[in-house]
């Protein structure tokens, strides 16, 4: 996951290749209307870090609508939400003003796996383990 400090947010991506989706937008309607066509980055906003709507939007963009470009988190993006964002399909995040990235990496290193499936690994733990078991037994 690409983590940017607050001042690094601006970059050269052309305006017609980016799309900002509001938290209350109807994704299905947007997608049906072709809003994702030619888009390289979708920006989803966290008005407060406790407002979790953008997690669902990211999950649906990836899993249901197969969006392959960058999904960027903006707004009140703090260290302890980054792993949730990554697992929900975000590929970049602009940290809120004043937040230092120093403690971020060890959050990603901590858990080797999680129980439930996510965007990175759709299968839950039990399905993954069952497959591993089958491979072991076959070998």
């Amino acid at each position, binding site marked *: 996951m690409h983590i940017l400090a607050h001042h690094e947010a601006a970059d050269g991506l052309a305006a017609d290749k980016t799309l900002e989706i509001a938290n209350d937008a109807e994704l299905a309607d947007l997608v049906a209307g072709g809003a994702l066509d030619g888009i390289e980055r979708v920006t989803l906003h966290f008005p407060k*870090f*406790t*407002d*979790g*709507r953008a*997690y*669902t939007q990211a*999950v649906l963009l990836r*899993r*249901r609508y197969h969006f392959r470009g960058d999904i960027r988190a903006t707004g009140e993006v*703090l*260290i*302890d*939400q980054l*792993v*949730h*964002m990554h*697992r*929900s399909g975000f590929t970049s995040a602009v940290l809120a003003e004043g937040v*230092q990235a120093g*403690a971020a990496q*060890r*959050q990603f290193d*901590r*858990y080797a*796996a*999680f*129980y*439930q*499936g*996510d965007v990175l690994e*759709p*299968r*839950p*733990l*039990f*399905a993954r383990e*069952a497959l591993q078991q089958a491979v072991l037994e076959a070998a």
Partner: protein
Amino acid sequence: MYQYTEFDQQFVKLRAQQFRDQLERWERGEMTDDQLLPLRLQNGWYIQRYAPMARIAVPYGEISSLQLRTLGRIAREYDRPTPELLAHAQATQDALQAAQPGLKLKAPPLRYGYGHFTTRTNCQFNWIPLSKAADVMELLASVSMHGIQTSGNDIRNITCDAWEGVAEDGIVDCRPFAEITRQWSSLHPEFSYLPRKFKIAFNGAAEDRAAIGWYDIGLQARTNEAGEAGFTVLVGGGMGRTPIVGAVVREFIVWHQLLNYIEAIVRVYNSYGRRDNKWKARIKILVKSEGQGFIDAVEKEYRAIVDLDGAPHTITQAEFDRVASHFVVPELKAANLPSNVDAQGQLYQRWLKQNVRGHKLAGMKTVTLSFKRVGFNPGDADGDTLDALALLAEQFSAAEARLTHEQNLMLPWVFESDLPALYEAARKLGLAQPNIGLLTDMISCPGGDFCSLANARSLHIAAALTERYQDLDELFDLGPIDIHMSGCINSCGHHHSGHIGILGVDKDGKEWYQITLGGADGSSLSGPAIGGKVVGPSFSAAEVPDVIEALIDTFRELRQPGELFIDALRRIGHDPFKQAANGARHPKEAALAD
């Protein structure tokens, strides 16, 4: 009982490490109090009136002797205020007591060194300093315990009927499903910042003993015509400021689709639940405002999860079998301890009647130990008692116990032949009051003695009622009565579902109490879940015990032979009870209230 795998064990250890890392960053100033707040809540740590409170999950109420001993150790070694803090807290409570019109006694002493069993089968500690929080979480992790999502706007600790797997009227043992759902919901990346808290309860028996109508999601186990296990799904129940009973959104979801269906419900809630007003943010408000539209949205989302996403969380037979294999009947051995109990004695017979229940296995019983006793807060167990409970469970119940949502502890695997010896042992511990289901088996939150959300105290009211109703002849004559008490509208004491509900409210810095009548939790005794109705303007702390007595006396006067309180109330209507309650106001305080 479920035994943690290596993965499960590692997971709670890492969670404890993560919490330590968060606390250290906060201490270094890398995180503000506001930024730490949701993180510590997601680990079960509140900051209360005088000290932090730790809420430890006891998933679906099931707890082992080893875990009870660890809670005992935490009570003894960590649940300790400094003398200065305790003196300050007690002085503040004494001043609060002195400010209440008509209360003559000093405030009861604040206790420490104990765990408190809650209506949501958690165990709370009130005095552990935040500087010891990470140590406590690591200690808990060593015995497969945690505080994950016992607070915060996420999927909370999952509850069940306490009698799952041992009940005579069991349909489906819900414990494996509760455990599978616990794992699925733990650190869920999409659902950790919901609009508000989210509580799931399972009931696997004919009688609803889990109050599922009062839950965000209530799951009633049943089988379909093909004999497959599954659930009727209720959504949108909840107490708080707007009590609403859950609505059936699906008559039957087959067991292997359970997680996919819950995912659909929570996703619709996360997307559309209100976030502009804390008091309108629970899913019940969304269900109520959208009605059929909500159900349609959930069904559509569920179809999409199955048809478009490949239904990744379909529970496999192998996974169900793996988890269910932990919930088989344990190795059972009678204690065969000697006892001198007079088997025909009235006390023992009363205990058999109230505290002992039938079992799905012949020759076995379940025994509820009563944590409603004079001199103790409802649901409190000190360190030594927790140790003693661990031993009792080992001797008499395959080293397993269950927390009940009525704040008692139940032993699920007791040989009928062991009942006299168990009775004797429980009596020595002060846990054999034969009052389960009776008036003194009150539900109460910690209230304004500890909780910073509370508007009023609840424990001194509970203590006053407990002392007033100590005559067992009288209690048995009155029969089952549910008194539920909350210190504020958050309703941790489930006052809405009490036959008599007591709710603390705050007016001009003084403690007042609203009394409700006729609530039901959904049990056979109480009938379908419904919120109680307010009897009138609130009462002062000094008036409440007299008001309750007036209600009880009215019942005694008007009942038909053998009629229960709740039935009499429904037959007669609330009016004579209201009049009696209002007639019990103290003249001087009534004037003050104006």
